[in-house]
């Protein structure tokens, strides 16, 4: 039997492929890669494109990935696919947005946490919950 390696294609939100393969093609940032079993350890970023996997019974499977990371070990290959299109400026814009949201919310309050009041408030909330529990027990007597 031909040599195989274990291939996993996963994204943050789900597992896409997991199983043995004879060969794998992926679009690396420095050029396309064709990977056979017993490849040297390699870590690279991949471009948006197609990941092609040749299974042991010579079937080909295609997956589209919008970029991600590729980790290669002699016996195993892992494709960590991104679910989102990533670009520096898009990330930057998202970060700014998150900051703005916080600043807007922050506008009318101080930066210091008053631990005493906070704990008192939390204690009150928990006491209420306990009271409800007790009431429930009493009702169910």
């Amino acid at each position, binding site marked *: 039997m031909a040599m195989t390696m274990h291939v996993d294609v996963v994204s*943050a939100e789900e597992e896409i492929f997991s199983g043995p393969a004879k060969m794998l093609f992926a679009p690396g940032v420095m050029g396309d890669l064709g990977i056979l079993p017993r490849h040297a*350890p390699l870590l690279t970023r991949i471009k948006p494109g197609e990941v092609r996997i040749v299974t042991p019974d010579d079937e080909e499977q295609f997956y589209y990935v919008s970029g991600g990371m590729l980790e290669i070990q002699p016996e195993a290959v892992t494709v960590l696919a991104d679910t989102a299109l990533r670009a520096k400026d898009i990330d930057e814009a998202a970060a700014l947005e998150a900051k703005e949201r916080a600043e807007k*919310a922050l506008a009318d309050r101080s930066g210091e*946490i008053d*631990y005493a009041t906070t704990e008192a408030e939390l204690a009150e909330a928990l006491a209420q919950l306990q009271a409800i529990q007790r009431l429930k027990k009493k009702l169910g007597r």
Partner: protein
Amino acid sequence: MAVGKEIRTKVKSVQNTQKITRAMEMVAASKMRKAQERMAASRPYARKIRNVIKHLAHAHPEYKHTYLQDREVKRVGYIVVSSDRGLCGGLNANLFRACIGSLKEWDAKGVGIDLCAIGGKASGFFKRVGGNVVAEASHLGDAPAINDLIGTVKVMLDAFDNGEIDRLYVVYNEFVSTMAQDPQIEQLLPIQAETEDDYAHQWDYLYEPEAKEVLTDLLTRFVESLVYQAVVENIACEQSARMVAMKAASDNASDLIDELNLAYNKARQAAITQEISEIVSGAAAV
């Protein structure tokens, strides 16, 4: 008969409340199942990426990334993951209590704190009590996409890169079981890689294009995936906590209805008895 009209209306109103809590219970139960599936689906990625990081710790890269280096703590960052909505028992209150306890310790040491609120309840809480919230994300819905979190996480990562914070934690509820959720405080940065010594030989990856870039990408994704995992797990917790809380509310309503019905029947019986005795004594007088 106009006996116990107030009691009847009270029973009606409790019944209406019960209808709502029962519906919420069922909705939460079905959402919980989906949330649990989502939680399971996002695990392989976190496991794989953790594996790669473990390999990295074994390999001896010529380049040491800042995310992997411990440094003196002058300021810390906290990402607090909460639910968007209430009516889920003590879930958020317990989480905030654990969080405040840990913040207080840092405060006692004179360490500054930056906060990042995920979920409406966390931003509302810190709005009330104060705290330096530098980033915020809420209304993520039941099926959050990792896109929604990238910006928020990046604010904290940038702060770490620029030396504004020296440690980053995430606070969320761990899903133990349907009945139990456990507030967790986990350190994100610097990344604590597990090291085993059973690797005899030393090796390193080939990096394309460059070690620094590739590592930054990888570690950023790792932190994002951990935060995403925390958010998804918190949603599963929220739904199960809500289911349990609503079930308790429905049960309480049933008990209350039973008691009110008993009171109503007693009042009715008393009225009938009184009427009969009035008729009998009236007939006897004739």
